[in-house]
């Protein structure tokens, strides 16, 4: 093979691998990503039961109930809507009523949300970013910029 042919082989191989990677990425981006919604987004959309989403908002005051074997239920609210959440597991250390939370899971078709993962903030001084954005958009919460950097 001449130098030119070898180089073409190399470029061809590189092109094939990159095309494979691009194909996989496009396929996975269509299929395997999870959208973030607030309770109001969920109410406004016609999501089919079983669609995986991340639901974010505030934990409604007084809504937390604990059942047997680690089963818990609580409600996630934003300015206009609320959605009941069921979860089996240990809630994060910084899960509190009245504070921001993100639950990942699926809608059961009867207006309930079945979470298999609940994320609270890592630190008491800030909210999950998506939740903060939603609440700011709805004008409920002005942000705690003052406290984040102090």
């Amino acid at each position, binding site marked *: *093979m001449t*130098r030119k042919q*070898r180089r073409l*082989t*190399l470029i061809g*191989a*590189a092109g094939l*691998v*990159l095309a*494979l*990677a691009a194909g*996989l*990425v496009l*396929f*996975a*981006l269509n*299929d*395997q*990503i*999870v*959208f*973030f919604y607030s309770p109001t987004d969920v109410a406004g959309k016609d999501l089919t039961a079983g669609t995986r989403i*991340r639901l974010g908002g505030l934990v409604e005051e007084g809504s937390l109930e*604990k059942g*047997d*074997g*680690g089963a818990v239920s609580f409600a996630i609210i934003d300015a206009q809507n609320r959605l009941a959440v069921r979860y*089996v*597991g*240990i*809630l994060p*250390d*910084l899960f509190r009523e009245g504070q921001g939370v993100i639950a*990942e899971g699926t809608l059961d078709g009867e207006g309930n949300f079945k979470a298999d993962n609940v994320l609270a903030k*890592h*630190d*008491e001084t*800030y909210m*999950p*970013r*998506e939740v903060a*954005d939603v609440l700011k958009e709805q004008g409920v919460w002005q942000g705690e910029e003052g406290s*984040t*950097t*102090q």
Partner: protein
Amino acid sequence: MSGAFSIAELGHYALVLALALALVQSVLPLWGAKTNDERLMGVAPAAALASFAYVAFAFTALTIVYVTSDFSVKNVWENSHSAKPMIFKISGVWGNHEGSMLLWVLILSLFAALVAVFGRALPKSLFATVLAVQGWIASAFLAFIVATSNPFARLEQAPVEGRDLNPILQDVGLAIHPPLLYLGYVGFSIAFAFAVAALIDGRVDSAWARWVRPWTLAAWMFLTAGIAMGSYWAYYELGWGGWWFWDPVENASFMPWLAGTALLHSAIVMEKRSALKIWTILLAIMTFSLSLLGTFLVRSGVLTSVHAFATDPTRGLFILIILIGFIGGSLALFAWRAPVLRQGGLFAPVSREGALVFNNLFLVAATATVLVGTLYPLGLEAFTDKKISVGAPFYNLTFGPLMIPVLLAMPFGPMLAWKRGDLAGVAQRLSAAAIAAVLAVLLTLVLAGAENILAPLGVGLGIWLIAGAIVEITDRIKLFRTDFATSWSRLKGLPRSAFGGLLGHAGIGMSVIGIVMVTGYQSETITTLKPGETAEIAGYALRYDGAAPRTGPNYREDVARFTVTKNGGAPITMESAKRFYEARNSGTTEAAIKTVWFSQLYVSIGEWAADGGLVVRAYYKPMVTLVWLGALVMSIGGLVSLTDRRLRIGIAQRARKRPAGTAPEPAA
């Protein structure tokens, strides 16, 4: 108080002086290299060493105000507490934005100082240019610290007590993880500086690769250990028992690792065969660019996580400008100057070089998928307001399939000959490894059942890698094909880097087995236990004995005690705790972990109910420690290679023996 007062200010002045020196280091040596002025070029090592000394002084000053709990310094007040144990007072220095940037710059200037000390045998203009490029990076980041992130800022009135460090960060993990990670991240700056210097010089040869390879190897070794350390820290500290979340912050360190792994391999080709020059230069630029991107993602507050200590738009913008400047600038330089570099040796597609190109293509493609997965959500949100998250399912479909060919082909690479290899011959010599892999698949199927077919195949893949790495050595020493004494003397005659390669490849195999076993066969139970009640997990009986309060230095905790027995064997005691840190009004859960061989029993607790019932989440994680042990073995492999005589960083000694090898004549 007055002594402490001056220390913080001195630290601040030292930073400003370090910045001034870094600027000198950025400009004068480069001018000297251009005009062939030896005095100007000679400024470079002196400026690099002095700059390092000032940054080290500033870092020491910050450590002193932390250790003495001087709460008049804002940074100390925000992140420390007088009752905090000494180790966390020290590690708290980098447990915040300002301090961690200072650590970043400290390590950067340390590397520049090391180049200044060990690089005297380099061609003079290359030496000066490399240090000048290091100076650009140091100037940018020192300016960033001085302008936006002064760790020495004072409060007008000194509070009596500090606000303590985020409890999650109060762990030995924090003492080790960031320094290791930064040694890796920032260590790639040397490869970058060499790449840019080669482009400016318009000349690159195998001496260049001999220089770049040990530094890259050292950086890679630290990064490997740092990522593994971070993974294990998240595993035991966050209480979910997860060891990798494909979190953007994790990806930020994983992408430079992937690119750095590719760079390590392409540098071999360049050193031994003078081929792939342009590609190696590009990889060196990409690897450090990904390090910078990682720093941007983590430090700018674009992503909010435990790593983004604070969000301040000016900081984000500043780092973004640094990022664009360095990546854009170096790529433009590459596009302009790369055609000047001379082409290297020829090789057939089936050859050692070909195998390393195969490795590089797939590693770079895999890096690209991680990059897309990390940046796509940010881009989508910026342009469409849609918020998405990209998690494990995405990477399982993209990153996973791209890694499988690399892993399958890995044992072939080191056994193929340079220039033109014999694939069939190598396959035959690898038959022992293939047999071991098939046996491993069958054994796993017999032991674990056939419900899960992917996991046994994965275990087989891991064994293929380990056995393949061993076969490479036994093949080289002709074990069983000649008498034992000859094999032994051949073994002793092998270069250290051969064993480094063995450990590197076998370590990947170990990690693969760990990942596959814990993903495929982990068991989990969640239940409420009252004192005296027992839960079952993977054949273990877990009895909850009760809870007791305990007081730590800056927290109090409720400790739940468990007694674990298996088939009536000796009982083991495990303790899981809920900690509460008063100063921060927040807490952590300390998981109880018991290691049995390579597997772990992991118990995490929730809240207590009024009737004394406790929510208990227990996992049995088979072979999970192999995930990190494999990474540790890889890292040790890097260290073993570094001690190879032919690859020593202190290349000066060798240069005395073979001056012609390291100071080549200019290319005609």
